[in-house]
């Protein structure tokens, strides 16, 4: 794969991330389902990691984490590292234990989202923000409602992968 192909491939992936970001940041929060908005960016990181493997998953996770930290209010930096590590882990899991399939993506998305919600619940408990049941009342619906969006995210990135993914030339 030439340098030009490499840049073309990741440009198309970035274009794919754009509608996910707009949906996640500006459209879905306007129409929450029973007060809950889905979180789509970790799903995008997981889908690309499953399709492209550990190394590309780390890079894409890093980029998604940067977008999340810089374009959303209240960033503190931790999401860049979290999504890079999660991208690496999910990429490795899909390469060695699962497959580049929708069930694999579903499991990896659950892992990334579950880990994120666990961290948030842990932070809430550590800072005494609320009790466990109150924190879980936010974390569980968020997890479930976000997971419901996995097929859409998977289909989008799978279509991109089929066109420019792996070592295919554009």
């Amino acid at each position, binding site marked *: 794969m030439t340098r030009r192909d490499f840049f073309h491939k990741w440009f198309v992936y970035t274009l794919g991330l754009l509608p996910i970001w707009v949906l996640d*940041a*500006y459209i879905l929060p306007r129409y929450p389902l029973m007060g809950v908005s889905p979180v789509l960016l970790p799903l995008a990181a997981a889908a690309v990691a499953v399709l492209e493997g550990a190394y590309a998953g780390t890079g894409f996770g890093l980029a998604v984490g940067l977008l999340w930290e810089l374009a959303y209010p209240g960033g503190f930096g*931790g999401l860049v590292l979290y999504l*890079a*590590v999660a991208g690496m882990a999910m990429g490795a899991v899909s*390469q060695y234990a699962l497959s580049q399939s929708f069930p694999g993506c579903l499991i990896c998305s659950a892992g990334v989202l579950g880990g994120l919600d666990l961290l*948030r619940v842990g932070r809430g408990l550590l800072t005494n923000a609320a009790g466990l049941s109150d924190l879980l009342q936010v974390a569980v619906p968020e997890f479930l409602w976000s997971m419901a969006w996995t097929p859409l995210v998977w289909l989008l990135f799978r279509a991109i992968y089929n066109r420019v993914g792996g070592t295919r030339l554009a």
Partner: protein
Amino acid sequence: MKDFLRQNGILLLVIALLLSILIGALSYAMGGEADILSNAVTTVASPIRNGVAAAADWLEGVYRYVFHYKELEEELTDLRAQVRELEEKVRQGEEASRENEQLRELLGLKERRRGFELETAKVTARSTSNWESILTLSKGTNDGIEAGDCVITETGVLVGVVMEVGVNWSTVSTVINTETEIGGIVTRTYSAGVLEGDFSLMNQGRLKLNYLPEGAQLVSGDEVLTSGRGEMFPSGLKVGQVEGVFTDPSGQIRYAVIVPSVTLDSLIEVFVIKDFDITE
């Protein structure tokens, strides 16, 4: 994993770690003002944010017009009745104001004043996280907005406090957000407390009036305003109504649950109080 190591995957993780530290340090160092990276990204994203907000507002308007026309008509009739009522009250108020002025002059009392320097702004994005309640506005430092400014509706109801400001955007921590902490007072009993967001109440769209005095006899429906203590925020801004009074599990602190008067989900335009001058 061999591929990962061969392709300098560790280097990517190190870069991620360094970026995390950099963003964390910048956001800590900048306090209320957005750090340079967030400012650049959010400013570049402004046209998308504003465009999506404008399109969504327009579509919602069309939807309401088509599917809720009868309700809109009823609302219009109610509003016309309210305008007639208010016009009458304004006439009475003007008369009372003139009389008040004359009496103050006679008694040599200082005039009470409430002066707000306001800046209108559009709500361009709502909470992007289920863990906090934040709004994004269309104005920032270019229009003189600063962190800590109060945000109100057109009827003077408190929406929240500006927490982060960029060049042409700002984020507002709403009254129900867990980071909110403002002095509040119950108008009927003059019981003062601290208005605070609470995680469990935030998801029900409520907040707390904490540290109530022991003898405070509050009832459901009591009106709560900002107290203006500390002079950080103006006094007299309407916050909401008391829903109930409770005691925390330790049995030491009494608090009231407040239903905010603002409907955060349907806010389109708000006013930022850039400066205020209140003489009581």
